[in-house]
Structure formats: C-alpha cells, structure tokens
C-alpha cells in the first residue's frame, strides 16, 4: 500500500513537472519576443566567427567586414546595393596618367577626437604598404599604389606605379579603411587590433575574444547619428546555436543560417528569413594535366552528365542560382547571354565515346573536407557520373592543406572543387588570379587567348573596353569548359521582426546606420 502511495506521489510529481514544462514551452514564443523587446534600442547580432584582430590590414574575413564596416570608413564606400559612393572623400578624379586625386570630407574626427585629414590618409597607406602591412593579407591588393602624396590638408594624390582599373573599388575594401595615426603610433598595432578606433557610425566599447564585441552609437557621425544606441556582436560558431539564440529572443540578427535550419527560422512567428545572393560561386575545376581532363570532350561530358539544378533543389533547398562562368551575376564582366550547359546524359555518353574514354574509367574529385553542402553534392555526382560510365572517387582534404598544398602543387584529382567570392565584384580579381599562368592557385592551366584577354582588360581604365575584353574571355572559358560552374551561393540571414531597415548585404558588410528596432 505504501509502495502504491509512493508511486502515486511520484507519478503526480512527474505529471506536474510535465505540465509545467508544457506551459512554459507553449508560452516560449511570446516570451522570446518580449525578451528581445526588453533590449530597447540595443541590437544583438550573432555571427559565426571572431576574426581575432580588428586591424583592417590584418584580415580578409567576412566576419571582420560585418563589424568593421560600422567602425571604420574608407575614402569611398560600397553600400548594400554594391554601388560605389563617396565616403571620407567627397570626390575624386584622375589628374594625370598615373595620379588619382581625392578631395577629403572636412570636419570629420576619429572616435578618440583625432582629426581626419590628408595626413591620416597618407599614414594609413604608408602603413598598409610598409612592413606592418607585409604581415597581413591586404597589402598585395594595393600593390599598384606607389605612394600617397599630401597636396593640402584635405587633398591627397594616389601616385600609381601600374595600371589598376579596379582601384576605386579596392579603395572601399577592408585594407583601405582609414586609421588614426596618433592613436596607432601611441598604442601600437597589437593594441589597436583589440581596441579599434575609426570614424564610423559606431565606436568601440568592449571586446572579449571569442565571446562578444560591443559598439555604441557615434552621435557626431558625419552622415548623421545612428538610430541604435548599442550594438553587440556575439561570436557563436555553431549554426544550430545561432538559430537557438534567435529563437530564444536573445539575438536580433543571425548570420549564416544553414539550409537545414531555414525552415525553423521561416516558421517562427517572430522571425524573418532573408536570403541574398552572394558574390561567392562554387564550381568544379578541371586539371588538364591529368588524363582524361585534358580533353575538352571529357570536360563537357562531365558537365552534361550532372543535373546541377536538381542538386540545388534537393541539397541546397533551392538556395543557390546556376551560373555559366566562374562569377556571379553581381560581377562586372559577367556575360548574361551565356547559359549553363544543359543536363544531357545522352550527350555526355556520346562525348565520352568520341573522346575514347572507356566505361568504368576512374576519376577523382578533390574538395575541402569542411564543406558539408559540397560533400553532399559530390555524393550525388558519384551517381550521376556512374550513369554515364565514369567511376568517381571522392577525395576530401583538410581545408588549409587543400588551399596551401593540394591545389597550388597540382595534387588534386582530375576534378577539384573551388569556391570564390571575388571581393571587388570585378571579374579581374577572379580571372587574373585563377586563369593567369603561374598564379598560386593556377599551377597548370594556360591558354594563349585567355592570356590575351587578361592583358587587354588590365591595360585600360576605360570600363567599356574592359567589359568587351571580359565578354571575349567569358566566351573563351565557356568554350574551353575548363571549369564546371555550379551555383551562386545564397546566404541566409535570420532577423527578428522588431528590426527595421535592415538589408541583408550580399557581401556580408552589415550597415547599421539606418537600422532601428521597434
């Protein structure tokens, strides 16, 4: 009897606990939203990575751009519409064959009170092009600049040592963010990297590595005061945890929502899923030095044998756009008239027969092992190629090893994956570094026509002439089928509905000046 009584009590306790949990769970969504609203005019962003160093010349990471674009300004700016507009320079013009002159904005101060002027611009570029910049990845982007000359306190000349038709766009890049000379000299680069000071709409407050960084509004910002009072970036590497933070109302914006979690965000009454096409394109490259990839018929057979659209629909849940060359539609130099080769396994078999490739021929596809989406796509490709008589072996390689050893030393299989962003959104950045003979990531491929078009687009600042050269280059690469362009990546952002005025940026450079919360 006592045992029965005990069991009844225990059962009652368990049921009561379940009821309590159920009630709490049922009210979770409403409580999540009230938690978000309790933050008032402060905003929390969860992003995947902490770049560890906020010095603009020390990084290439998109995670830097998400934060740094709100702390720093450059002479020119590239907004979410990806158009170039004035930044700390109000105007610019070529005043000689190799001299680009900028007129600077007056009355701007750095967050520490130091004035912005021509000396700050000169200091920024002397530092970038000198020994300090040599330690980071940004210096190489600006090697066309010989030096910066101060004309007067609000005028500077960029003296170029070689033609660089993309220089204006590059001056909106991370490495060209203007830094405060006195502050950097007094405190040193390591301190500056952990306590950044710029002229941007938000100023640095606090940084705890691998945890969070906090910014406060800069009320005297030259383009007007921000609407938000405080912005906190939290670094949450695990995607499921980022989405959980958003669902729990502890974050307002989550970067890099994985495809597998897209519906979780979409179906949450408090959240909006914002997909945006990014500059990043994923493709398979062929190594023509490894048989049978040297034969264009084999390359076209592989391209015809794989239904990329079906892979995009099934593995990427539709979050990807097909591309015909190794650039996104956002890129200057993209030829929209070129259409991707159609999926046609019959054509693939015929091309393989013409190329003398026997059924059962083994080919290898190398790819960085951390790319989960591509790994799934590659597994589907095994079946597609098997259907036309090719045996595809998958060779995943650790990412850093892949990019610093496997690709540059031509240790890949006949096929290998490559993803590319082209940060300038100009095909030059992709084309020259990946198709020009002898470049770090192009140890094998060369073609006389391709070289000719690359020289042509680089030898003039006349954009129309460059575009014409790119159209010829696109066609030549398309005909050679040296790559198998797969899809333009679509980035997914999760945003709480209380956030107003937020535009998901294609290049991850979140601009918060116009963002508010209700």
């Amino acid at each position, binding site marked *: 009897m006592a045992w029965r009584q005990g069991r009844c009590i225990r059962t009652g306790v368990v049921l009561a606990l379940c009821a309590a949990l159920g009630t709490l769970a049922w009210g979770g969504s409403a409580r999540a939203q009230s938690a978000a609203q309790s933050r008032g005019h402060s905003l929390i962003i969860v992003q995947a990575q902490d770049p560890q*160093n906020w010095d603009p010349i020390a990084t*290439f990471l998109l995670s830097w751009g998400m934060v740094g674009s709100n702390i720093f300004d450059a002479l020119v700016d590239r907004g979410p519409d990806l158009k170039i507009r004035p930044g700390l320079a109000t105007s610019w013009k070529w005043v000689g064959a190799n001299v680009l002159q900028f007129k600077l904005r007056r009355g701007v101060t750095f967050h520490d009170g130091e004035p912005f002027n021509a000396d700050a611009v000169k200091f920024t570029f002397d530092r970038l092009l000198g020994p300090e910049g040599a*330690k980071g990845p940004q210096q190489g*982007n600006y090697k066309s600049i010989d030096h910066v000359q101060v004309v007067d306190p609000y005028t500077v000349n960029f003296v170029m040592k070689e033609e660089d038709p993309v220089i204006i766009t590059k001056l909106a890049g991370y490495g060209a963010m203007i830094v405060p000379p006195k502050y950097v000299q007094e405190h040193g680069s390591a301190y500056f990297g952990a306590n950044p000071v710029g002229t941007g709409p938000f100023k640095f407050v606090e940084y705890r590595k691998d945890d969070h960084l906090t910014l406060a509004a800069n009320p005297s910002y030259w383009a007007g005061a921000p609407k938000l009072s405080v912005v906190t970036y939290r670094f949450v*590497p695990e995607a499921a*945890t980022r989405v*959980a933070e958003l669902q*729990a109302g502890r974050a307002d914006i989550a970067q890099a929502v994985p495809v597998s979690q897209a519906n979780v965000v979409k179906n949450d009454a408090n959240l909006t899923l914002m997909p945006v096409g990014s500059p990043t394109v994923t493709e398979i490259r062929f190594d023509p030095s490894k048989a049978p990839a040297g034969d264009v018929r084999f390359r076209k057979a592989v391209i015809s044998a794989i239904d990329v659209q079906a892979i995009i629909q099934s593995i990427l849940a539709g979050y990807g756009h097909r591309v015909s060359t190794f650039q996104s539609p956002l890129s200057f130099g993209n030829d929209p008239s070129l259409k991707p080769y159609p999926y046609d396994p019959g054509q693939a078999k015929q091309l393989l027969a013409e190329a003398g490739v026997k059924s059962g021929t083994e080919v290898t596809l190398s790819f960085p092992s951390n790319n989960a989406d591509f790994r799934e796509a590659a597994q589907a490709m095994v079946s597609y190629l098997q259907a036309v008589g090719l045996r595809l072996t998958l060779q995943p390689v650790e990412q850093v090893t892949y990019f610093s050893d496997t690709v540059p030393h031509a240790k890949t299989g006949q096929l290998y994956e490559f993803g590319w962003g082209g940060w300038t959104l100009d095909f030059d950045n992709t084309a020259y570094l990946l198709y020009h003979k002898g470049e770090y990531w192009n140890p094998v491929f060369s073609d006389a026509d391709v070289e000719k078009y690359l020289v042509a687009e680089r030898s003039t600042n006349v954009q129309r002439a460059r575009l014409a050269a790119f159209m010829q280059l696109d066609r030549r690469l398309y005909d050679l089928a040296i790559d198998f362009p797969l899809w333009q990546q679509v980035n997914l952002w999760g945003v709480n509905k209380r956030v107003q005025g937020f535009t998901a940026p294609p290049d991850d450079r979140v601009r918060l000046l116009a963002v508010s919360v209700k």
Partner: protein
Amino acid sequence: MTRFVAARAGGAAAVLAAISLFVAFGIRLTGDPAVAMFEGAGAPSVQDVQRMHQALGTDRPFLVQYAAFAGAALRGDLGTSFRSGEPVSALIAARAGATLALAVGGMAVALAVAFPLGTYAAMHRDALADFLIRVGSLLGLSFPNFWLAIMLILIFAVRVRWFPPSGYSGPASLVLPCLTLGVILASTLVRLVRASLLDTLGQPYIRTARAKGMPERLVIVRHGLRNALLPVVTFIGLQFGGLLGGVVILENVFAWPGLGQLALEAVSYRDYPVVQGVVVVLALGVVAVNLLVDLSYGLLNPRVRVG
C-alpha cells in the same frame, strides 16, 4: 616524497619538451599560415606568400624556429599570435578561466551524479534501481556530446528558456555546458564506482566490520567507498586529458570563450605560436593533475604512500 616529486617533475619536463617538439613539427607538415590568412575573398600571389613568410618568420629552417620558441618559452614567453599580434600567454590567460570553470563544473556534476547513483546501484545489486542506473549510464555513453548539447539547448534554452543557449555571462550560462559534460563523464564514472564498490564490499575486512556491528552506512562510507576510491581517482586523473578534448567540442557548441575554441581556431589558421602555446599549457595541466593523483594515493591508502 621530495625525491619522488623531483623525479616526476623531471619526467614531466621531458614529456613537455617532447610534446612541444612533436606539435611544432606536426603543425608545419601541412597547411600554410600565410595562405590561411587569405580566407574570405582573397587569393594570394606567389609573391604575397613569400612576403608573408618573411614577415611571420616561417621562411626560417624548422629547427631555428623551434629553438627560438623553446628558448623564449623557458623565459615564459610563448611568442606572438600570427593572427592577432598579441602575446600567446595573454591569449591563454584570458581564456584559461572559462575552460577551467567548464572542466571543474562538468567534473562536479559528474561526481555529484556518479557517486550517489554508483553507490546506490552497488548496494542494490541486480535490483530494478541497479538495472535502471546501468541503462541510464549506457544511454549517457551513447549520446554524442554535441548532440546532447544541442538537445539541452533546444529544451532548456529555446523551449522553456530557463538558461541561455550559449555564451559566458554569469552562473546561469554554466548550467547547460556543465550538465552536458557532467552527464557524459558521469556515465562512465557511475559504472566504475558501482564496480569498484562491489569489489570492495566483497572483501574480508568489510565482513569483519559488519561482524563488529558497525552500522551499514559507516561500513559503506568508511571502509567501502574509501577503498573503492583508488581506481576512481585514477580514472578521473586519466580522464582529465580526455575531458579537455570533449571541452573543445562543447566550447564550440556553447560559444564558450575558452582554450578549446582558441586551439581549434589556431589549428584552422595554422597559427603556430598559439597552437604550440596552448598544447604546452594543456599538457602541463594534464601532467600536473596526474602528479596530484599519484600523490593522492597515499592519502587514500597508506600502504602505497611514498618516501
């Protein structure tokens, strides 16, 4: 005792030297920090890579690089991070507290769960409770730690919202990571406590204690548990190294700013000084804990006391 500690310290120094040499060599076998820094949107040219090797000092022969690291480490300087430009010792110091809190918290949960349950199961051998505890332990062992972590986040942070899903922001943020770690550790520990106690309870001195009329509770605590502790303490010491491995994954899931995340990022970017520094410090921790375990044997059982 002094001679024993000195001998162990000498052995530990040799182990640390071997580990640091192995790690410094191993991390340089694959991957290039100069190329890793271009991740994002850049492509290095051959000249860019050469320039960065010079600037980072990675163009020097391996033995020169290692000698510079070892010499400086002996003076307490673990070098400077390639990525952040900050001293490695400062990076480690800033994160050690978070990792220690997680490791100690997880171990505390494990001990708090494993000792009562293991003891109860041993005292009620083959009863329903024993069976349920063993099944529970098997379940705990079967959960991959990242899966358990995400389930706990979904239930306790997203649904009922009792605790924050991630971050390091006060005592509440410790609960889910420590619980995850504790459950996983406890699953093994509970079986060990049970088995060890069962073995001890079958010893003649337990029969003698009972025959003397000593209350059962005292028999279990004073004679049973104390003698059963020896293999358990050994296990905890050995487990400490493995625990740090588990912490790396949990720090990632819970966005915990500890040494695990620092090491993971440093390996991803081939930040040689940080990898070397973190491994040496963690190895030092493992060696120190195992030394303490050896010394604790004497307290638990006077027959194995040294010197």
